[in-house]
């Protein structure tokens, strides 16, 4: 198992209700989540806006510490591991963010953006690793000298992917990485991810609100609603016989490129 997650809870302080003295009351954001991510799987995480998908991602990567429950990553319990002990493990799980423009440093060239984390983790052979990562995402090596503003949205997203895979992680969490892309770039990025999963044996969790994309890419899907998992199913099953009312609602709301689709 890549991830084994049990009874995961997360609450954050509600700063808007903080009294002048004393602690702020807490809001529960993730309410007892249990699920596994097998090695080599592509797990889809779908759910409404504000349902806790990004927060779940941040907890899985231990950018946030759970309030209760446990996270086991490849056999190691990382639920409360401190930052010093986490550091050598961090290379093994990576995140790709939604907004390629604000997650790439505008003042660094592509080689610096991809090479930075490599240096941070003390890896050698920087040049060849950067070139290799660019090859894998299908960008010309000459792009190493470009700045983010000299790239299109789809190209920037590929730089984000290259930065993550250059570290040769075991697990990548992709948070809404294609929702801002036009359909053609979207197709390129999805085809690329599929190849990488196959060639590198990556395990992938893919957060998206686009069920058409999820169906294309994922083998299993969990559906989050208000901090709870309301459905956990094989992809084909979820689409042919959705169990949860919320899943059915999601399916019915997908706008197909067809003016005659009933949509009310």
């Amino acid at each position, binding site marked *: 198992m890549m991830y084994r997650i049990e009874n995961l809870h997360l609450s954050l302080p*509600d*700063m*808007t*209700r903080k009294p002048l003295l004393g602690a702020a009351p807490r809001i529960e954001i993730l309410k007892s989540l249990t699920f596994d991510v097998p090695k080599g799987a592509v797990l889809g995480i*779908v*759910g*409404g*806006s*504000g*349902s806790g998908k*990004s927060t779940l991602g941040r907890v899985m990567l231990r950018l946030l510490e759970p309030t209760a429950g446990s996270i086991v990553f490849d056999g190691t319990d990382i639920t409360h591991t401190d930052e010093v002990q986490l550091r050598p493990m961090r290379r093994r799980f990576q995140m790709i963010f*939604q*907004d390629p*423009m*604000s997650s790439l440093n505008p003042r660094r060239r592509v080689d610096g953006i991809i090479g930075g984390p490599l240096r941070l983790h003390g890896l050698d052979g920087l040049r060849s690793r950067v070139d290799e990562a660019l090859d894998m995402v299908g960008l010309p090596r000459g792009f190493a000298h470009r700045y983010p503003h000299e790239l*299109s*949205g*789809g190209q920037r997203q590929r730089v984000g992917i290259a930065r993550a895979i250059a570290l040769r992680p075991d697990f990548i969490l992709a948070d*809404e990485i294609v*929702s*801002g*892309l*036009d*359909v*053609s*770039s*979207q*197709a*390129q990025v*999805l*085809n690329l991810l599929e190849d990488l999963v196959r060639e590198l044996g990556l395990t992938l969790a893919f957060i998206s*609100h*686009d*069920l*058409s*994309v*999820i*169906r*294309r890419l994922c083998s299993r899907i969990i559906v989050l609603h208000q901090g709870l998992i309301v459905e956990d199913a094989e992809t*084909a099953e979820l*689409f042919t016989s959705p169990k949860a009312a919320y899943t059915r*609602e*999601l*399916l019915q*709301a*997908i*706008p*197909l*490129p*067809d*003016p005659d*689709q009933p*949509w009310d």
Partner: protein
Amino acid sequence: MRPFLSIRNLSVALKNGGLILRNVSLDVAVGKVHGLVGESGAGKSMIGKSVLGTLPRALQITGGEIWLDGVDLLSIPPAQRRKRIGATAALIPQDPLTALNPTRRIGPQITRRLVDILGWTKADAQARALELLEEVQIADPARVMRNYPHELSGGMRQRILIASAFAAKPKLIIADEPTTALDVTVQKQILRLIADMQARHGSALLFVTHDLGVVSKVCDALSVLYAGKVVEDAQMRRFFCRPVHPYSRALLAATPTYTNPTGSLMPVPQSVIDAVEREVVQHDRRWRA
């Protein structure tokens, strides 16, 4: 009579000469929704920015007309133009992550325009903001007014920007990918809501999106843009039944649908790109001649 928004032969270029928009023409009538589709970098946002007078410094309008409510904005003095735009048009911006000021609470960010530009009282603006947040389905509006942007999810921030765009009841709304960060159920509510508010205020809506599924649900007509040139201009239904331009057909083929899971996704083929690039070059030659 001219449509409420009528863009005629609009050209925009980089100050160093590179063309960004090539002779763009499109019309949006009162109560209508006009879609603007095309790949990243095609110039969709720059059309909106040309209308609103917010082009980046490196770009300038080099020709054409922008008629808004019977007046060509490009033929009147800048101060007058800004005033007209401020009173008539509103933008739902593309990037909900950077469009909100991270150091200010949500409440004042919505009410400021009402108070500063339209002279509402603070109390009225506050009440209107709460009402709008409820309309965009924000669960606890009073709390959210006191939140900072980073305390809200991406979709919540996007809905806040939609609410603020409608605050002053604009007659023209330019929505730049207004639902990209939303899940489909909220997207559906929001699209209905936008349609609703639009019908109630009789606004004209220019709707930028890369989602052809959304286009088929909300738009009356659309323009397909490639490299700043309109390659197809169509009534919505005609576009989906009989797309004319090869680039339009390729875009439709690249759109994933959950009802067709095995069909592999086809990025726009190089041959189509090459053909449309040639078209653009020819256009530029004719234009310069």
